[in-house]
């Protein structure tokens, strides 16, 4: 029996598509999965493949035509079959639903059928879907076109979306016959339906067994989380981020730290941490590598003459990055005290929002958790961020003797659009050398 191929609807707002190419001509024989035509919306180009085999009996539109979605495009069938009923614009005489007749009392009035109906939305009509089902589909990111309608009059109702959540997208009729129920396919058909061709391409993944449904709790995301989320996503989406790792001998740092611990209070010095020392050294090293102390807009590279150091702080409400202004001119005790101050304000939530702006470079520290290396995400429009890792014990051979020392890792992420790997590595190398000679660095 002849079947019509319709112009698919690509998304709810698309009203029509332009045919860019017919791959088959009228009279050609067509095999299931053959490319029939290519069409485009204002955003993308799509291919439509045949879902059945047969002869391409009629083509209703030519290349370049702007065709309303869900309109019949062509007919596939056997020689001699009548195609006139598929002519676009022709009202198809529907068979009168005998169930619609009213029936006498006490006899079953079988008007809505028995049990679950599976009805496809009628051609030319908008998808019928309950607000609740639409809501749920949107929340789950599911394409409503992939749902099988089981509500009254072909309406998609909530349970249909529920089914979709559990079983994944729908298959075209042609594909339904041949798929492996444990497989995951990439759907390329109407509204993400998995076509016969998709099945033929093979499974993307085989699920040994369906995952057990997990228990969970929903919690509305607080605003700061949303802001962080957006910033992080924007950062990764718009930059070419590259992370390089290096480690250095932290003996010098640790020596200094021990001195501070034992003598610092007496000398009137604050409790200077390893991180303070890294901040101090970085600020002083950065000014020789100004591509890393910069903002990059894609058009303009803005290099700063001073270092406003962003210091990432982990708070109950999420990540915050207050700024140490003029960090390259601050003494180590000043850095220590100021960092403590802005960090506690961030944690308390009392920090002036102005102090969260204007950073030229950022340092983030996961060292206390024993992280050995990571890929920090740049705070746009900055061009780099330094991740401070934890201490590890390493061994080295020196004059035929094996000795151990404390090593600290640094992970530097750069925006490769603004800076290349080699200059970044040069900065990192210099920073490591400076840190290995931290006591001398204090004289700079």
């Amino acid at each position, binding site marked *: 029996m002849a079947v019509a191929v319709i112009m698919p609807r690509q998304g709810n707002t698309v009203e029509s598509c332009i045919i860019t190419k017919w791959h088959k001509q009228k009279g050609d024989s067509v095999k299931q999965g053959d490319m029939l035509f290519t069409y485009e919306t204002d955003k993308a180009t799509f291919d439509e493949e045949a879902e059945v085999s047969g002869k391409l009996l009629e083509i209703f539109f030519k290349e370049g035509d702007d065709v309303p979605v869900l309109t019949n495009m062509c007919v596939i069938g056997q020689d001699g079959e009548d195609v006139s009923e598929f002519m676009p614009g022709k009202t198809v005489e529907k068979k009168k639903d005998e169930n619609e007749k009213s029936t006498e009392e006490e006899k079953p009035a079988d*008007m809505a059928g*028995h*049990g679950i109906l599976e009805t496809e939305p009628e051609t030319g009509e908008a998808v019928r879907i309950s607000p609740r089902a639409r809501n749920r589909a949107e929340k789950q990111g599911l394409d409503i076109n992939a749902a099988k309608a089981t509500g009254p*009059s072909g309406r998609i109702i909530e349970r249909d979306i529920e089914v979709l959540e559990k079983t994944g997208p729908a298959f075209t009729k042609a594909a339904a016959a041949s798929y492996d129920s444990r497989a995951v396919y990439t759907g390329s058909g109407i509204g993400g339906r998995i076509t016969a061709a998709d099945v033929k391409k093979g499974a993307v993944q085989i699920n040994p067994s369906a995952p057990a449904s997990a228990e969970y709790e929903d919690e509305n995301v607080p605003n700061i989380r949303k802001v962080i989320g957006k910033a992080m996503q924007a950062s990764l989406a718009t930059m070419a981020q590259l992370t390089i790792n290096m480690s250095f001998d932290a003996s010098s740092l640790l020596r200094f730290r021990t001195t501070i611990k034992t003598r610092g209070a007496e000398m009137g010095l604050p409790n200077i941490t390893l991180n303070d020392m890294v901040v101090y050294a970085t600020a002083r090293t950065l000014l020789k590598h100004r591509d890393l102390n910069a903002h990059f807009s894609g058009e303009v590279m803005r290099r700063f003459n001073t270092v406003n150091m962003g210091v990432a702080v982990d708070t109950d409400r999420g990540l915050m990055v207050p700024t140490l202004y003029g960090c390259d001119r601050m003494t180590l005790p000043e850095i220590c005290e100021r960092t403590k101050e802005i960090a506690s304000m961030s944690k308390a939530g009392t920090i002036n929002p102005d102090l969260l702006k204007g950073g030229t470079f950022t340092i983030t520290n996961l060292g206390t958790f024993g992280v050995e290396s990571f890929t920090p995400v740049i705070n746009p429009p900055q061009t780099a961020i330094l991740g401070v890792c934890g201490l590890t014990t390493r061994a080295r051979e020196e004059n035929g003797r094996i000795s151990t020392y404390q090593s600290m890792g640094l992970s530097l992420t750069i925006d490769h659009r603004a800076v290349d790997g080699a200059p970044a590595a040069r900065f990192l190398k210099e920073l490591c050398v400076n840190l290995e000679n931290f006591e001398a660095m204090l004289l700079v």
Partner: protein
Amino acid sequence: MPKEQFIDPNEIRKSGEIKFKPIPVNSYSRTISDEKDNFSKADFMRIFRDMSIIREFESMLNAIKTTGQYNGIEYNHPGPAHLSIGQEASSVGQAYLLDTDDYIFGSHRSHGEILAKGLSAIEKLSDKRLMEIMETYFDGAILKVVQAGQSSVSELAVDFLIYGTLAEIFARETGFHRGLGGSMHAFFTPFGIYPNNAIVGGSADIATGAALYKKVNQKKGIVIANIGDASLGCGPVWEGMCFASMDQFRKLWEGQFKGGLPIIFNFFNNQYGMGGQTIGETMGYGFLARFGAGVNPDQMHSERIDGYNPLAVIDAIRRKKEILAAKKGPVLLDTITYRVSGHSPSDASSYRSKEEIDAWAQQDSLITYRRSLVEHKVSGDGEFEAMLESTKDLITKVFKMAIDDKISPRMDLVGSPRSIEDLMFSNEKIEKMEDREPEVLMPYEENPRVMQIAKKERFAFSEGKPVSKNKLFQLRDAIFEAVAHKFYTDPTLVAYGEENRDWGGAFAVYRGLTEALPYNRLFNSSISEAAIIGTAVGYGMCGGRAIVELMYCDFLGRAGDEVFNQLPKWQAMSAGVLRMPVVVRVSVGSKYGAQHSQDWTSLCAHIPGLKVVFPVTPYDAKGLMNAALAGSDPVIFFESQSLYDKGEEFVETGVPEGYYEIPLGEPDIKKTGSDITILTIGATLYKALEAARILEEKYGMSAEVIDARSIVPFNYEKVVESVRKTGRIVLSSDACERGSQLKDMAQTISELAFDYLDAPPVVVGARNWITPAHEYEKFFFPQPGWIIDAIHQKIVPLKDHVSMQNFTETEQIRLNKAGV
């Protein structure tokens, strides 16, 4: 049906004839000289002054309506003005002897009565009392506008009266009722001026209720219903007169309560009703006064008096007051007058001749009364002219104030958009309307019904088994407890209706109350639905609490005006001056066919100003009745006759013996569920619970069943919360589906829960048919199966369900096309 009254067939079947006494017609014949002993010159002159104030007031309105100006000052008054030019002598004569304890109720044509009664009250009240009234009324808001330059308190009070009335007519916030009453509904209770009524004859039964209030609560004064000749064609007027002349007042009521109601049905017989002429065209009485003869053996002391002579009217009122003081009311007066100004200023008088108008103008009361005072040397023309001149100045002064937007502003509905909304209900909680000992005949505990109830089970199940009907505390007992409690708390509470005493009400709710209460608190009324509600309106607005009963909800139509125009409106039309603590019990019938089985909650819910509840469990019935009887607003209290013997099936601790209230407006979840919500009004709750059981057992669908309990007000939060959970809702009740409250609720739920709905809210109501005989009721009222069919066809197809009813869209369109 008191047993002590024997209806003797020998008496009833005896032959004889009914004799009527002659009815006096314009019997007053004294001259001014004859009256000089009774009236001083000042009295005579004041009568003229009051008449001239009314004449000038009405002429001012006439000029504004017809020429857009008065004394050269332009003003547009788009609202109504039904003028009483020509009728001044009748209203001034009537008011002359009345004081503030005497209440008058009027019609759409009552400006003159307001002014006359107000001027008479001012004359009688002390300066101190006058100031008190003016200073406390709306915290002196009206007084502040008018107080300037008057030489005496009574002069100030006259300005206050005229200004308050005119500002009310002009819809000013400084009117007697903030402009919410207007021309046809102006009044001022501190002077004994009770609501005028825009419905012809509307005051007849309301005034009867006021007279009932005075009698039951032993208050001073009489009540006059001022209505027109044409209103005699209105049923409620007849009902009011029949109610007022019930034999029981003289034969069954006892002690100080014995005797007739202190009321005069005064017909200002101005010869016309709209363009219809009552004598010769639209009525057949010849003399209106004739009517009194048919009502009771006293013939209502009926007579025709000459309303064109103020002294004749004063004489009549003096005589009738004596009759009322002797507890021989009611009285009917046919007060002749003439409607010079037509029905309204738009009336071109096409139905009457110029000769007729001229002939009455020749006898105009202001002219003839003045002439007779001159002839009998009471005063000279010069004094009258000066008086007319100062009246004109007075009206002009007040007119200027009343149209000045600065001192007489309109209500600010932009700045305070809830100004009217806030007045629709008074929402007060008043335990008792007066603080005195309620009159009862026995201690509550000794009441036989109370003792009987004490032995009953207050929860429907005992150890999982149903309690037998005889041992069960039933819904009728629950209502009884609430009503009885209030009778022992509020001394003003009265209950009456079509069957309230002896029998204990047609459905035995009041059984036991007869023993506990005297007639003056519980009585059977005439089968006069309009009068039953209308009197309750009058009783409530005077300060009492009434619970009245119409037996079948279907009889609400008989009291249409009283339920839809009077009971709901007076609180707001009085701008909060009046309260309406009236509970109307109506019962939805069953088994009794088309005119005795209808659920008319929707009709009541449509009318702004009524609270509407429909409890269907004993716990809810008692709690809601307690709340209704403790409030200050009118409540239509629906009951279901199929449920009077229901026990409490939900509150496992049983119906509390003590007092508790359930706030009006809160629906109640009777069964929790997760897959579908069923919201019901009325007895359908039990069908819905049955449907829920089937859904769960057969289709694995868990239904949440909510009982609306109240219709107005209604808190949607609980329902919306349920729908957010289930995504689906069916609404069901025994009301005919079209235009029902269910449809209104469904629409509101669509708006409030749209994004959560998996299908449109579906309404399963009764058919839009007559209610057929009991044997066919299952084809008419919603059944459990209907609810399931509707869910299957319109909300979510149920596996293997076979429908018996047709709820398809095609059928819906067909039914609507056919209007059924």
